[in-house]
C-alpha cells in the first residue's frame, strides 16, 4: 500500500536535525519558483501595463479581465488546449498499448526495431516540427504530397486546412514512443506464468488482452497520463514553428495565446490574466491527476 511505503517501520530520524534541513534549499527555491510568478501575475492582472507604452502604467481594476473575456481567441484557445491534450493522450496511450503488445512478441531484430521506434521521443520539438512541416506535410515538396500524387490524389495543405489536427499528429508522433516504451516495460513485467496459465485455460488473444494484460497496465497508464499532461499543457514550440497559432486562432492554445500577448503585443496585463487562467486550468487537472497518481504510487 502507498501509505505503508512512506510510513515505514524504520526508526524515526532520532534527532538528526541536520538531515532534515538538507531538504530546505530545494523546498525554498521550488516554493519561490512557484509562488513569486503567481503573485506577480496576480498583481499585473489588475494593472494597465504595456511594454510599448511604459508611461501609461497604472491600476486598471478588472479592465484586463474584461478585455480578455471579450477576446475572440480565448474560448478557442481553451478549447484547443483541451482538444490537443485529449487527442494526444488518446492516440498515444491507445496506440501505445496495442503496439506494446506487438513489441512484446518475439520477432527477428526486436532490439533494433525498438531503438528505431524510440527515436522520435529524443528529437527536440523544434526539429520534429520543422521536419514534419517541410519534409512530410509540405503541399509541394513534402513526402506525403508525393505519396498522394502518386496514387492520383490532390495533395492537401495540412497547416492551412487542418492546422490543429496537423499539430496533434506531430505531437502524437513525439509522444507515442514514450507511451509505447512505458507500456512495453509494464507488459514485460507481467508474469510469464500468468500468461501461460491463462493460455492453458483456453484464453484467446482478445480475452488475454482484456482480462490479463489490460488490468496490469493501470499503473503505467496513470503514470504516462501524468507526465504527458505535464508536457502537453505547455505545448508551444510545435505551434511556434509551424502555424504561429493560425490561421486566425485555429491552432492557438493557451500557452501560445499568452505568448502572443507578451512578446507580440507587449501587453503584460492581458497576458497576466490569461496566465492566471492557464494556472487555474492546470491546477484543476493536477488535482485529479495527483490523486490518481498518488494512489498508484509504491503499491
Amino acid at each position: 500500500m502507498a501509505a505503508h511505503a512512506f510510513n515505514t517501520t524504520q526508526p524515526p530520524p532520532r534527532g538528526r536535525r541536520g538531515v532534515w534541513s538538507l531538504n530546505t534549499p530545494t523546498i525554498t527555491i521550488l516554493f519561490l519558483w512557484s509562488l513569486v510568478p503567481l503573485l506577480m501575475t496576480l498583481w499585473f492582472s489588475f494593472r494597465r501595463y504595456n511594454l510599448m507604452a511604459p508611461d501609461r502604467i497604472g491600476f486598471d481594476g478588472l479592465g484586463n479581465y474584461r478585455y480578455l473575456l471579450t477576446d475572440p481567441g480565448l474560448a478557442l484557445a481553451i478549447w484547443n488546449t483541451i482538444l490537443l491534450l485529449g487527442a494526444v493522450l488518446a492516440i498515444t496511450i491507445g496506440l501505445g498499448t496495442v503496439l506494446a503488445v506487438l513489441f512484446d512478441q518475439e520477432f527477428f531484430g526486436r532490439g533494433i526495431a525498438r531503438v528505431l521506434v524510440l527515436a522520435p521521443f529524443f528529437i527536440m520539438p523544434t526539429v520534429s516540427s520543422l521536419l514534419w512541416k517541410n519534409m512530410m506535410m509540405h503541399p509541394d515538396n513534402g513526402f506525403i504530397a508525393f505519396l498522394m500524387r502518386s496514387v492520383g490524389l490532390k495533395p492537401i495543405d495540412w497547416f492551412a486546412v487542418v492546422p490543429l489536427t496537423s499539430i496533434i499528429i506531430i505531437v502524437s508522433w513525439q509522444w507515442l514512443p514514450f507511451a509505447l516504451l512505458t507500456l512495453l516495460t509494464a507488459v514485460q513485467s507481467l508474469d510469464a506464468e500468468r500468461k501461460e496459465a491463462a493460455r492453458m485455460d483456453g484464453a484467446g488473444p482478445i480475452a488475454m488482452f482484456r482480462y490479463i494484460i489490460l488490468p496490469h497496465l493501470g499503473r503505467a497508464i496513470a503514470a504516462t497520463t501524468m507526465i504527458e499532461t505535464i508536457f502537453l499543457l505547455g505545448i508551444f514550440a510545435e505551434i511556434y514553428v509551424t502555424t504561429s497559432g493560425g490561421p486566425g486562432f485555429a491552432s492557438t492554445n493557451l500557452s501560445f495565446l499568452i505568448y502572443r500577448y507578451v512578446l507580440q503585443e507587449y501587453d503584460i496585463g492581458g497576458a497576466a490574466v490569461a496566465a492566471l487562467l492557464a494556472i487555474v486550468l492546470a491546477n484543476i487537472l493536477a488535482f485529479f491527476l495527483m490523486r490518481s497518481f498518488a494512489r498508484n504510487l509504491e503499491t
Partner: protein
Amino acid sequence: MTLSYSKLQRKMLMTVLAWIVAFLIFFPVFWMILTSFKSETEAISRVPHLFFSATLDGYRAVQEQANYLHFAWNSLVVSLGSTVLALVFAIPSAYSMAFSPTRRTRGTLLWMLSTKMMPPVGALVSVYLIFRDAGLLDTKTGLLIVDALANLPIIVWMLYTYFKEVPREVLEAARMDGAGPLREIYNLLLPLSMPGIVSTSLLAVILAWNEAFWSLTLTTSKAAPLAAFIASFSSPEGLFYAKLSAASTMAIAPILLLGWASQKQLVRGLTFGAVK
C-alpha cells in the same frame, strides 16, 4: 513438427508487422538524415529519389553561414550547467527524504511534482520581467537557471527512487563511526548509487538540451541554444531543406545516442519509479 512450423510462421508474421510499424515511425527521421546529404535542388525534388549523389554541402553551409558551433556550445553549456546546478540541490534533498523520512515526506514529494504541473507559460510574464531587470535576458546563465528549476522536481524524484534502493544499514554503519550527513553522502551514497545518478543526469541533460519554450522566449542570438537556432529555419529564405536537415541531424545526434543508451532508466525516471 507442425507445432514448431506454425510457431515459426507466427514469428515471421510478427516480424513483418512489427518492422512495418517501426519503419513507419522512424521514417521521418530517416528521411531527414537522407535529405541532409542531398544538394538543395535534389532535396526539394517533387519526385524524391532514394539514390542520389551524396554531398556534404548542407553541413558545410550550416557551419559557414550560420556558425553552428556557437549554438552547439550554448546548448552544451546550458544543458550540462543546468544539470549540475539541479543535482547540487537535488542530491541532499533526495538523501534527506530517502533516509530520514517524516510524516510529511510523501506530501512534500507530491507537492514538488505538482509545481511541475504549472505550464511554463504561467511564469513567462514574471520571469521575463525579472530577467529584463536583472540583465539575464539572452544569457546562458539565465537560461541555465530556469532549466535547472524546471527540471528540479523530476530530478529529485528520480534520485529519491534510486536512493531508496541503497541499504540503510550501510549508511547507518558509517553514522556509528561518526560521519556527518555530508560526509555520508560524499563517501558512501554517491559511490553506491552512481548508476542511478548517471541515469538521472542523462535524463536531465536530454530534457535541457531539447527544451524549447524558455529557449525561444528568453534568448535571441547570443545565448540561443540549438533548439532556438533550428526554429530560425521556420521563416527561411531560398532553398534550405538540406541545410535544415544537416543542422537538425547534428542537433539530435548526440541526444539520440544518449537516449538509446538510457532507455530503460528513462521509463523509470519519467514515471517516477511507478514503472520499472
